[in-house]
């Protein structure tokens, strides 16, 4: 049975329509929250339903290669034809499921979280628009169409980070994200030009089919293309050296952080590499760079997460670190493992962010409760974990869901993160990269530690929201979030448990779904694997220090459990100072707390010299030369006019003398 996409255009049209309706609503019915409440989530649920139908149809069909749906021509020029074509294959459908599925849950959650916000309709408009562009990115069948989605999600990310634009810092965070992304986008663009030069087309299917013959293995051109593409990935997916925008992006509303800066947009880089896997397979240098940057970022970001106090910053660095894992996976050629971790990470990281949002929401409302202005000002930062503590009593549901997500990301079996992360660690060893394997293992340990620390500071111990002695007041004012917010958490918690069962390793056949995801994605990645195998890729499937997959799965699970238990036991008895009492960390802890001073480095090395240069351009070139030329022209004209004016004495005699001399001159010339 062949596969025919069902109503493919509807997947994109529904979120776009939702964005249009809510966008109009932001102007026309600002105070009426009923329409955005219905339209926003409904647009996503509708889109999800269509994707689900297609997903089921595809899994029943025998699809090799991809089904391309051509909607209309976009650019036709000479031999070049770029159409608005949607590519339906196993990879894009899986991504669509994640984007619309997790997106729907986050839209529903937003109804509760953003309830009191004056920009309610505008918020849903941006969020719908983001999902539209994300789907364009995922479904686009050519580099340019993907780039449209790529830029579109960047735009929506900028709009949503700076959603509370009255706050200057938030608006600046939006700008920072946008500018950092532009650096990467430039790489993407140049890569696209090179692809066109090499292949004469920009559609994925012909390019990937012809890649092995057209481009030399390990040649300069393919290495250049893939490295430039990877530069785009580092921008979008917040990898070293362009990672600094993501922690600042936490300025946006928390559901936005969950959807854009954890579950979907930031994984676009991983998706791009998975999509162009054949090109990367042709360049061992690029693969090495991707894997090394990914592993380095994973360890680097995890080390920072250990010393952060802002709950969202911890999760942001955790996201960067987990994205590093995904790049490590696609870098070593374990594409399925990378996409698998992308999927499970979308589940548990969205859950973590939404849970953090619930905590922030509860603390903010507790402070605002009975407050003179009702805004909770004057208490402190509702994102700061030093202001939490003991929330287990007040928010029992959130507490349970957050622990599920924490165990999932830490890699405790049988939750999702255990399977996906362990697969990456295993393959990095099995494919013969002992150093990356060690880094991945160390990062797994750090992951368990910083997540357990987050949980201890937030939910365990005594409550500090109203100071150390404010337990009674906290008991009156801190409440669990409403059902519209915790219900999506419950769904995500279930997914965080079962998500990993989609790809049970062969070595541990605990469920019938052994290697299901691997088989599902095989048609997409088979060409890349074939290229690698044709050029001497023959892994031995053993870890660098011996032992098989099953043994190392048990060992890494043991490391995760030991790290979580150990951290809880060490940190629980320690009193935590409140935000007001906090003392600045010293020594190495301070380096981690200050994020290895990367922002400061960029500020000194790039931002300030650039500003100095531009100030010089302004003062010297613009104000001096350009303004000087313009003002000088004006001054010269005035001088000339003044000189001419002096001839006008007003005396008739002068004019007559001039007239006579002129007449004599004319006569002299004529005769």
């Amino acid at each position, binding site marked *: 049975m062949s596969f025919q996409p069902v109503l493919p255009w509807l997947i994109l049209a529904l979120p776009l329509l939702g964005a249009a309706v809510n966008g109009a609503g932001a102007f026309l019915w600002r105070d009426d929250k009923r329409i955005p409440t219905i339209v926003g989530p409904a647009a996503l649920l509708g889109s999800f339903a269509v994707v689900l139908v297609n997903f089921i149809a595809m899994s029943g069909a025998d699809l090799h290669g991809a089904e391309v749906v051509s909607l209309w021509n976009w650019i036709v020029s000479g031999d070049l034809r770029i159409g608005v074509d949607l590519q339906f294959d196993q990879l894009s459908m899986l991504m669509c499921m994640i984007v619309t599925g997790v997106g729907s849950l986050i839209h529903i959650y937003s109804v509760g979280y953003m309830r009191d916000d004056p920009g309610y309709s505008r918020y849903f408009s941006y969020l719908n628009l983001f999902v539209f562009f994300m789907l364009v990115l995922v479904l686009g069948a050519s580099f340019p169409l993907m780039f449209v989605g790529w830029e579109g999600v960047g735009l929506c990310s900028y709009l949503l980070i700076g959603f509370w634009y009255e706050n200057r810092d938030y608006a600046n965070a939006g700008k920072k994200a946008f500018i950092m992304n532009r650096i990467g986008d430039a790489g993407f663009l140049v890569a696209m030009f090179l692809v066109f030069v090499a292949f004469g087309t920009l559609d994925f299917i012909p390019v990937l089919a012809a890649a092995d013959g057209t481009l030399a293995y390990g040649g300069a051109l393919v290495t250049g293309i893939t490295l430039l593409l990877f530069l785009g990935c580092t921008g979008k997916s917040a990898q070293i050296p362009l990672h600094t925008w993501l922690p600042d992006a936490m300025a946006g509303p928390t559901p936005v952080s969950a959807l854009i800066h954890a579950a979907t947009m930031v994984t676009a880089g991983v998706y791009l590499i998975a999509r162009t896997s054949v090109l990367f397979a042709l360049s061992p240098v690029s693969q090495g760079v991707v894997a090394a940057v990914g592993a380095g970022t994973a360890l680097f970001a995890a080390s920072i997460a250990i010393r952060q106090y802002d709950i969202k910053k911890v999760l942001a660095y955790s996201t960067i670190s987990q994205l590093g894992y995904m790049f490590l996976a696609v870098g070593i050629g374990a594409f399925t493992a990378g996409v698998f971790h992308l999927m499970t990470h979308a589940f548990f990281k969205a859950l973590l962010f939404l849970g953090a949002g619930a905590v922030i929401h509860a603390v903010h409302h507790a402070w605002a409760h009975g407050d003179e202005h009702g805004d909770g000002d004057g208490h402190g930062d509702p994102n700061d974990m030093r202001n939490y503590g003991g929330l287990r009593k007040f928010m029992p549901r959130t507490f349970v869901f957050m622990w599920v997500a924490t165990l999932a990301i830490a890699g405790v079996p049988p939750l999702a993160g255990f399977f996906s992360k362990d697969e990456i660690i295993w393959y990095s060893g099995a494919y013969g990269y002992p150093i990356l394997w060690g880094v991945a293992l160390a990062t797994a340990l750090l992951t368990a530690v910083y997540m357990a620390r987050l949980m201890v500071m937030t939910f365990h111990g005594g409550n500090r929201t109203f100071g150390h002695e404010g337990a009674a007041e906290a008991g009156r004012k801190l409440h669990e979030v409403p059902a519209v917010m915790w219900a999506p958490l419950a769904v995500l918690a279930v997914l965080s448990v079962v998500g990993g069962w989609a790809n049970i390793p062969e070595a541990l056949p605990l469920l019938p779904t052994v290697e299901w995801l691997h088989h599902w994605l095989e048609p997409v990645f088979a060409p890349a694997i074939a290229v690698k195998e044709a050029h001497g890729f023959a892994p031995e499937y053993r870890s660098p220090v011996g032992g098989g997959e099953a043994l190392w799965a048990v060992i890494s699970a043991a490391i995760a459990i030991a790290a979580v238990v150990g951290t809880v036991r060490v940190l629980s008895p320690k009193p935590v100072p409140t935000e007001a009492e906090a003392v600045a960390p010293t020594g190495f802890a301070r380096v981690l707390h200050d994020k290895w001073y990367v922002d400061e480095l960029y500020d000194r090395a790039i931002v300030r010299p650039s500003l100095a240069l531009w100030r010089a351009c302004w003062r010297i070139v613009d104000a001096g030369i350009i303004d000087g030329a313009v003002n000088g022209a004006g001054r010269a004209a005035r001088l000339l006019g003044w000189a001419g*004016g002096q001839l*006008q*004495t*007003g*005396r*008739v*005699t002068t*004019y*007559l*003398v001039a007239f*006579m001399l002129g007449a004599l001159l004319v006569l002299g010339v004529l005769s």
Partner: protein
Amino acid sequence: MAAALGLNGLIALFVSAILFSIGVIGVLLRRNAIIVFMCIELMLNAANLSLVAFARMHGIEGQIFVFFVMAVAAAEAAVGLAIIIAIFRHYEVVDLDRFRLLKW
């Protein structure tokens, strides 16, 4: 040319040139508006004289021209004198150096 004009014609041209020069110098040097005006008339009539002199050589058209010039000059004299009288009534002088309104 001298032959066709004859001696009298030649004299008439010289007189015309002298009259015209006197007129020019008068216009340039004198300050009294009436005198300047009279010098302009002198230049006009110098031109008339040379037209009449050339009429000997080229036929009657030159003399006809002179009648036209005289008619126009009469009209011009009326307007010019009227302006001078208006100025005098206002300022009670007709010294051209006093009138410098044509400036910038």
